[in-house]
């Protein structure tokens, strides 16, 4: 059976806008403000519903790539951590190859990889030698693509100063470029 969740969400957003919000007491500004946000959240989820899986895959791929780039530095700085890098990267790659992998597993694996990267960044601290510079630089540079995808995901929330500059989600996920 096809999924009709988006239909439900769109109807809920309309109900908020056309029935519930107009009925609220104008003397209750907090209720009015929050009702507006609830309506916006419903519309946002409806618009993003079909992209959720693509988002999880993109993020996991991003962290797999970052860990791969950091591995040579991790081997010099923290051999124990480098072993964990290799093991978790292999596990994550396996999850991507398995069509039955659920959303929780994709997200959990991305989080585990992010923690490994964070551990390496913390291990270099405010040191300024070549390896430390490279570790910080790789994370800094690679974050550009990650943030571009996140800003595109959240574009409907209306916070961007120049929304026309944001690359659409279908372009980001279609190219799959994580860096």
């Amino acid at each position, binding site marked *: 059976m096809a999924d009709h969740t988006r239909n439900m969400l769109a109807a809920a957003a309309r109900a908020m806008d056309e029935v519930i919000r107009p009925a609220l007491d104008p003397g209750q500004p907090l209720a009015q403000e929050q009702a507006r*946000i609830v309506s916006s959240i419903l519309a946002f989820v409806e618009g993003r519903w079909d992209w959720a899986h693509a988002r999880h895959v993109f993020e996991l791929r991003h962290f797999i790539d970052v860990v791969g780039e950091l591995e040579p530095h991790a081997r010099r700085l*923290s051999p124990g951590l480098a072993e964990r890098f290799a093991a978790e990267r292999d596990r994550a790659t396996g999850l991507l190859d398995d069509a039955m992998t659920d959303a929780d597993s994709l997200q959990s694996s991305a989080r585990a990889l*992010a923690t490994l990267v964070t551990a390496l960044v913390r291990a270099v601290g405010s040191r300024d030698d070549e390896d430390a510079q490279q570790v910080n630089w790789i994370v800094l540079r690679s*974050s550009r693509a990650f943030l571009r995808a996140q800003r595109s995901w959240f574009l409907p929330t209306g*916070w961007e*100063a120049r929304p026309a500059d944001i690359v659409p989600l279908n372009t980001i996920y279609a190219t799959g470029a994580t860096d």
Partner: protein
Amino acid sequence: MTDVGLEILRALQANEQLREAPNEGLAVAVRGQFPTEDEFADMLDRRMRRRRMPRRPTPSLDEVERCLRSFLKVQLEGPFDVRDVRWLSGGASKIQVAFTLLSSALAHEQEGSVDLVIRMEPQESLNSTSRRREFQLIEAVRETVPVPRPYWIDVDADWFPEPTLIYELVRGTNKVSTIEGRPTGTGNSFGSRLRPALGRRFVEDLAKIHTLDFSGADLGAFDLPRVGTTDTALWQLNRARRIWEEDRPEDFPLIDVAANWLHRNLPVLDHVSLLHGDFRGGNFLFDEESGEITAWLDWERGHLGDRHRDLAWITSPTFGHYDDDGTTFLVSGLVPLEEFYERYEKLSGLFVDPERLRFYRVLNNYQLVISTLGTAYRVTRLGRTHQDVLLTWLEGVVYSMAEQLRTAMEEDRHG
């Protein structure tokens, strides 16, 4: 031989468990690791102690009124009454309730009647801040810039559910009535009619605050940073780092790269200014007819420190917008960027240092990402505020701020 990376990994994984089921052990550990101003540290300790408490729904207006009446019985001589107790909207971090107080003790002012605001933390706030500091700051600047007159403070929540400040309700609005704005008031447009007058006062008031001689003021809740040291920058960085340890939903490596960069680049302080901490559109009230600013609000982030912290905050793209031409960025929707710096330097006599501006741009975005991604997630997950739905909506702004932080560090690398 110790593998530092593995040790750090184990600590990260252990702390993740503690964030989900916090105890005082985590607070003690991070307090020691990231020393900051005493009052900040005490506030953060307090919130961690209370984090294991069950969720308490936002107090009803009736409950707030009962607390208020009990409180006023002790504060006022003679009979009194409270009328028209009502919620105020706006703001993500504080509960605000307005009311009218009638009291013979006020007979000499406004014919025995005054409109006041109760400003209170929710069970846990987006920004854990001190009402005592807020009270002291407002008192310190009262003769300099328009602020609500503070009346009373319940520092230890003896009468109210949470620490509370009561101050004058000032007439005015924080947004133009005919222009729909964001719930937090950030980045709102003021329109071409009001921009000149508001823009002028905006810069004038900022210059006055930063050059205020506060030596005679009671600012006992504030630590005074030493000129010629990195005190103030390090305290601000450490406060944010501690909050990230206690609140984040998951690791975000860019934030740790930023922490490394900030620690390597701590600037030395040249002049101690009193800082507002959240000086922007949305945090001042104005008269829509005359364009006069009637009050500066939300002093909770204020502290004694480097003016560049305020300057970097105020000029953030998040808090302004582009003019109709699409190329002129208006600081807080009011003043073109270059004009803002020129006017500020002229009015204050203080120069704007691009290097320190960059540091504080990175630090401010670092703090904001931590607050809107870390604390907002944590307190809404626990159901702690009256604005949970707004706080979750704030995630939409996290990644543009993170990109500003990333870009600033990248420019430094290439610069």
